[in-house]
């Protein structure tokens, strides 16, 4: 090594070490920022009095209250029902769309591409109020005119809305998976005598599966977490979990919400592990 290079490396080394220390410090501070509120929330879910200021003792009182809370259980059931059904429908429609858009050229294709990205880009509250107006001013009147049935907002309208915002997300994830797709695999299968149906199920589908699972998981989480679109399409009868939590949070801070939050946190950690497992398959 030349002397000048050595010298610049030495000073560079110091700068680099300082840079590294700063990066580590920044990372430490940010992880603390992300996790301290969550840790405190978990700790106070085990408090034995109503206060969230001091730990007065440990108990599982708030968790037993959760198990016996009928409203909460109904909301949880609604949420799971909506999340599962909207995930299934949007995953099928989103995957078909990704295949169609990736492999074929047709009229209005680029216009439809824009429509597919729009729900991701526009603010959620706009989507919420547009669906509220649509159901009340167009959908229900048309149904009433056609069949005489008087409908109101409820679980079916929540489901319809969740499918609408989930399709684009599934589409984007599956489409990304199709970008690196090696089409020669399909040609090989066809050359070996497989028909198109068989080629799809034995070659295309297994390769796409991690993308489809990733899209489905994203759709499931988005549906489970959604507040804004749901609040405008739910009516008054049947709240989902986020609507129920929101009403509790607006009322004030109690250890019961802490206990519920802790349970939801554990569930989302399970989802993270699942999604990492799905990625590992890629």
């Amino acid at each position, binding site marked *: 090594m030349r002397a000048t290079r050595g010298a610049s490396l030495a000073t560079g080394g110091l700068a680099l070490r300082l840079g590294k220390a700063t990066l580590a410090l920044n990372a430490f501070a940010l992880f603390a*920022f992300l996790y301290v509120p969550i840790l*405190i929330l978990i700790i106070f879910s085990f408090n034995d009095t109503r206060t*969230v200021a001091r730990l007065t003792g440990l108990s599982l009182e708030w968790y037993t209250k959760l198990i016996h809370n009928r409203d909460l259980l109904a909301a949880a059931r609604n949420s799971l029902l909506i999340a599962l059904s909207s995930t299934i429908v949007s995953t099928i429609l989103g995957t078909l*769309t990704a295949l*169609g858009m990736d492999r074929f050229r047709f009229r209005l294709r680029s216009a439809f591409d824009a429509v597919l990205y729009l729900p991701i880009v526009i603010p959620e509250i706009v989507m919420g109020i*547009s669906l509220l*107006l649509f159901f009340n001013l167009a959908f229900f009147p048309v149904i009433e005119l056609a069949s005489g049935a008087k409908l109101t907002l409820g679980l079916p309208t929540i489901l319809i809305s969740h499918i609408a915002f989930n399709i684009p997300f599934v589409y984007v994830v599956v489409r990304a998976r199709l970008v690196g797709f090696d089409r020669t695999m399909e*040609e090989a299968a066809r050359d070996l005598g497989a028909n198109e149906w068989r080629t799809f199920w034995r070659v295309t589908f297994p390769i796409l599966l991690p993308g489809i699972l990733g899209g489905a998981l994203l759709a499931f989480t988005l549906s489970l977490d959604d507040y804004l679109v749901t609040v405008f399409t739910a009516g008054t009868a049947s709240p989902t979990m986020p609507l129920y939590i929101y009403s509790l*949070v*607006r009322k004030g801070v109690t250890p019961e919400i802490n206990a519920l939050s802790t349970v939801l946190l554990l569930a989302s950690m399970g989802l993270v592990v699942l999604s990492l497992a799905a990625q590992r398959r890629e």
Partner: protein
Amino acid sequence: MTGSDDKSGRRGPLLVLPAAAYLMIFFVLPLIIVLVISFVERGRAGGVRSPLAPTIQYYIRLVDPLYVGIFFKSARIALLVTGVCVLLGYPLAVFIGRSPPRLRSPLLMLVMIPFWTNFLVRTYAMKQLLGAEGGINGLLLWLGLIHSPLSLIFNEFSVVLGLVYGYFPFAVLPMYASIEKFDLTLMEAASDLGANLRRAFLQVMLPLTFPGVLAAIVLVFVPVVGAFITPDIMGGGKVEMIGTLINRQFGVARNWPFGSAMSLALMVMVVAGVLYYLRSSEEKERPI
């Protein structure tokens, strides 16, 4: 494209048709209705009157300084939150990307857990920490630094903090994806060619990881400018943003046409912003 695609020109539309029809009815049509309603006079009991006598009064009302002010304030808060998330998130993404492979996935998981956690739960955690009975006041009282609780919540600061807390993971993940792909030996090459660290970063690393930065900006700015949950919970009705304003038109104010006009204004603002950023990213990528 391979030959098999050309012979079946009808297959593509067929695969796309179900989702296209669904989104036409349950996404595009509702937006058209919002557009129509924004030109209709509101009814006396809420609702709307006949669409046959259109009015532009709600758009005129929109340029009232009061509402223009709230739009500007929302944009200002969103820019601030986006700036903080990107400036703090980029070094974090670099840190994760440069750590030994063994540590990388646990560190990444630490960012992903909040990302997948219910947004309300995390906002509530922050509210509890800042509240009069919360952890920060508790700590300061216990240390004897203050004698009565500080009011840390229900102001613009607590809203900004809550938004940064809520959307920070959205900024880190796309920037990490770009930084992970970036070849660090390029920095060495730049330094061998005589560039100092700052110049190597500005002229090599930043342009090459810019798509991730751009995705982070869009992913944070878009939801924050139209945010409702955080200003509602962390602002306690005292911090008005576009989201809370729109919500009020469909709640207590019962003014659907005005809420519709406001929603369209917000939508145009956001979509124009995103298109502008996408265009600028295309220009940035071309010379490289």
